[in-house]
């Protein structure tokens, strides 16, 4: 649900990073935080456990600049990936404008990726969204791992609607901005249509 304020001429969009535990959701937004111009980024809020696993969510507000005389602001959220935090994941999807699904390329995590997409579909539905129509980007993270599955195999297993598919190594920043940009493009184009 985009918030358009004609009085302050601002558009706010909520983008949620989703995916299985330890796939690199927090790493994505940490990298964006480190690279962003300090004047354009807000505080990175992380509600994490003592061992740095996401407990509730990470949150990063980003000022992107102007479009058609409106200030565009993205609110980036991550969900906790661990299976038993499902109730929290559902809450974070409330009112989201777009999803970035971060898949772990390691072969041993393929089942976790598939389960997480199924879980995303269910949780989106409960929030009144359809996974087949909401702005959606698939990021294949950890491409540098020796045990990474081949691209065609991942595509066959995880890509289901011709969504943009971007290879990434989030801890080095590879593909991180391209992923965000692909999501931004879909969200803003959606705005154009509505």
């Amino acid at each position, binding site marked *: *649900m*985009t*918030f*358009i*304020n*004609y*009085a*302050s001429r601002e*558009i*706010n969009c*909520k983008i949620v990073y989703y995916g299985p535990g330890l796939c690199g959701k927090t790493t994505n937004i940490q990298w964006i935080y480190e690279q962003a111009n300090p004047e354009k980024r*807000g*505080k990175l*809020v992380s*509600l994490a456990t003592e061992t740095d696993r996401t407990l*509730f*969510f990470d*949150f990063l*507000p980003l000022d*992107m*600049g102007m*479009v*058609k*005389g*409106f200030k*565009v602001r993205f*609110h980036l*959220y991550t969900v906790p990936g661990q299976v038993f935090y499902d*109730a*929290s994941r559902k*809450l*974070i999807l*409330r*009112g*989201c404008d777009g999803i970035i699904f971060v898949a772990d390329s390691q072969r041993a995590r393929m089942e976790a990726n598939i389960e997480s997409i199924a879980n995303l579909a269910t949780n989106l539905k409960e*929030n*009144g*969204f359809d996974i087949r129509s909401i702005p959606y980007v698939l990021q294949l993270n950890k491409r540098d791992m020796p045990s990474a599955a081949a691209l065609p195999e991942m595509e066959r297993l995880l890509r289901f609607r011709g969504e943009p598919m971007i290879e990434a190594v989030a801890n080095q920043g590879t593909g991180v*901005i391209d992923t965000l*940009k692909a999501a*931004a*493009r879909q969200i*803003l*184009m959606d*705005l*154009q249509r*509505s």
Partner: protein
Amino acid sequence: MAKLDLIMFEEEYKLLQEIIGRLQKDASAKVVFLVDKNGQQISAAGDVKSIDATSLASLTAGNVAATDGLAKLIGEKEFSLLFHEGEKDNLHISIVGKRGILVVIFDQNSSLALVRLRVKKASKDLQEIFEQVEQRAQKESDGGSRFESPFSEITDEDIDRLFGD
């Protein structure tokens, strides 16, 4: 329903701002924020600069969402009021209508009773405006939009520019 955007026009925004400003004075509060249930700040009054408003909005929404989840677990519809007591400052959080959250930050210059009383009155006024905004949005989504969206002509170049390309 989930996809209905929240579009706020100048006249509605001014009315909200007036109510929030009045509440801040009447309740002798330090700051008053009006936040959307999805974590976006709508309006604020008082010593706003002393607080990171964006983080406050997102954490408040998270807090309310988690409490909502707790309420449902025990068979309640929602908990309409949350109160956090600190050593110096206190947070009074209440739900307004279907999508608003009112956050009042106050210290020893005010009291919980006064804040509760003033919030009650302001909530009623705010709810009326939210209903107007919603009715208008519904009407426009049903067809016959009365204004031309400025985003109908967004181009690929506009998006590239946002990313500095």
